């Protein structure tokens, strides 16, 4: 199961050594971790940075006129700057730290949704959204009288752009909120085209980059969207940290979401005056250690290089497509042209949970169920699937091993 130097010039064997957990065994078998799409493992650089912070430079941030707090504040704000560079944001202040992608989308749904959108306006999502980019808009619809429209997904698992356009036609859609990469189908959506289309119809565009930001270089200037969210734990960073990027002029127009310390400029018992962006959206003690850990994760990813990561992943995707397609009785969900390293599949003779348990016995960790995308499973008429998703430490050999195990599993259950 050791990785080899693959054609891309990316030394996956060396990369694997950066991740302590990968040397674990599971019930006596080498761990083959194929659930990075749910949450990625953490490189030593991230772990060490968090430890160093807690051991040498920890205090609450902002307002502290003493050395440790100044150090912690500088590190926290350096993390913001690192995220801004990572996304190529125009201004660091456009980076708002939240606790997850879910929290970031809810922030927009509450603040932009209730504060800027009006009853009668519409929000357009798609059939392939993660629940995090579905339920907040259902709540907004129910609480605020905003219409919720859902763009179709084609049989190949791509966003139906003709349907998107048709649903934008009447100009009532004021916000398009879609995934940049499906966590089930692997589909990467055409971000730039979506931005152009949305803007042409008077709508803003929010992209859920929870998956995409891990697999691609994402550039706010190039894409031209208006909001972008991602989550730290899928990008090899800690849990408890997420990011909302928004255009300055939008963030400035939005009312605060959560109330508390640090988000106010002035407060009396009668009223409060919100602080400026981004403080306005960061109520209370932020995830300090986690933001600093995310900074280390971004540095780590960039030290390898997004281009190398993308190329490595293309190799994995090609191999997985070939190998999995060849397995009798296995149905792959989604076969988009532009896709990342996420494969959901069903086996004719076994329920997804039974299959996952079986694979676990061989050391392979895959997720089973509906992957927080129940409507998408309904769309494809599938009760549940197993999902293998890749990280930058995933090897071609692991994919071969998965394919082999699936063939054997089919024999086992037949």
């Amino acid at each position, binding site marked *: 199961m050791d990785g080899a130097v693959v054609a891309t010039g990316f030394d996956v064997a060396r990369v694997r050594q950066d991740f302590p957990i990968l040397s674990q065994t599971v019930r006596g078998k080498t761990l083959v971790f194929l659930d990075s799409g749910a949450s990625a493992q953490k490189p030593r650089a991230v772990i060490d940075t968090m430890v160093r912070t807690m051991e040498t430079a920890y205090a609450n941030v902002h307002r502290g006129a003493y050395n440790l707090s100044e150090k912690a504040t500088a590190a926290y704000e350096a993390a913001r700057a690192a995220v801004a560079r990572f996304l190529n944001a125009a201004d660091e202040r456009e980076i708002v730290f939240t606790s997850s992608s879910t929290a970031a989308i809810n922030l927009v749904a509450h603040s932009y949704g209730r504060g800027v959108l009006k009853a009668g306006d519409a929000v357009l999502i798609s059939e392939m959204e993660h629940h995090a980019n579905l339920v907040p808009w259902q709540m907004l619809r129910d609480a605020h009288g905003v219409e919720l429209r859902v763009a179709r997904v084609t049989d190949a698992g791509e966003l139906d752009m003709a349907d998107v356009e048709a649903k934008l036609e009447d100009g009532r859609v004021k916000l398009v909120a879609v995934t940049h990469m499906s966590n089930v189908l692997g589909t990467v959506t055409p971000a730039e085209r979506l931005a152009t289309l949305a803007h042409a119809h008077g709508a803003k565009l929010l992209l859920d980059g929870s998956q995409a930001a891990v697999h691609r270089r994402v550039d706010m200037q190039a894409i031209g969207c208006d909001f972008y969210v991602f989550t730290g734990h899928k990008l090899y960073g800690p849990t408890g940290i997420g990011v909302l990027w928004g255009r300055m002029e939008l963030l400035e127009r939005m009312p605060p979401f959560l109330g508390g310390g640090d988000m106010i400029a002035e407060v009396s018992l009668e009223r409060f005056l919100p602080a400026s962006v981004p403080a306005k959206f960061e109520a209370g003690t932020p995830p300090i250690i986690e933001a600093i850990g995310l900074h280390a994760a971004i540095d780590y990813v960039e030290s390898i290089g997004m281009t190398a990561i993308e190329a490595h992943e293309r190799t994995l995707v090609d191999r997985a497509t070939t190998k999995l397609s060849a397995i009798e009785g296995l149905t792959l969900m989604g076969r988009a042209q532009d896709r990342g390293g996420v494969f959901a599949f069903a086996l004719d003779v076994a329920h997804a949970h039974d299959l996952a348990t079986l694979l676990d016995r061989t050391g392979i960790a895959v997720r089973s169920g509906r992957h927080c995308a129940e409507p998408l499973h309904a769309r494809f008429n599938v009760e549940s699937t197993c999902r293998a998703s890749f990280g930058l430490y995933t090897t071609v050999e692991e994919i071969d091993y998965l394919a*082999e195990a699936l063939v*054997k599993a089919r024999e086992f259950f037949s």
Partner: protein
Amino acid sequence: MFDDLRDLYQEVILDHGRKPRNFRRLEDADRHARGDNPMCGDRMELWVKLEADGRIADAAFQGKGCAISMASASLMTETVRGKTPAEAHALGDTFRALAMTGTCPDCGAELADDMERLQVLGGVSEYPSRVKCATLAWHTLNNALDDKQEAASSE
């Protein structure tokens, strides 16, 4: 590759999973309940017919889910026939203990025969996330016998 998985997926389970017994609707049932583990997607409907003295005359179910949940429901419907509701509750408690721990210290002589049949599901205790698949049927039975309206869940 999967040799050591035979402890969980014994032939009996695969067989009951593929061809569950008493997989039907009981039109003249006295009791009825639904069971639902939304996170894993296991779902079932259970019907029970009672004797005049309150014993279980017949139990049948329909539903969909993994092999473990189907096999467990199938074995349960076979095992509880002829039992009083109190006996069925007690058996369910013992089964849950087995599913969670893999052992059955409480298995007194009066439960020994039944538990022997259910023992095939004991391997599930090694797979914490699957225990709830095995126990859903028994939670559903409790709700049916207690005439509870809401769907049972073991999540």
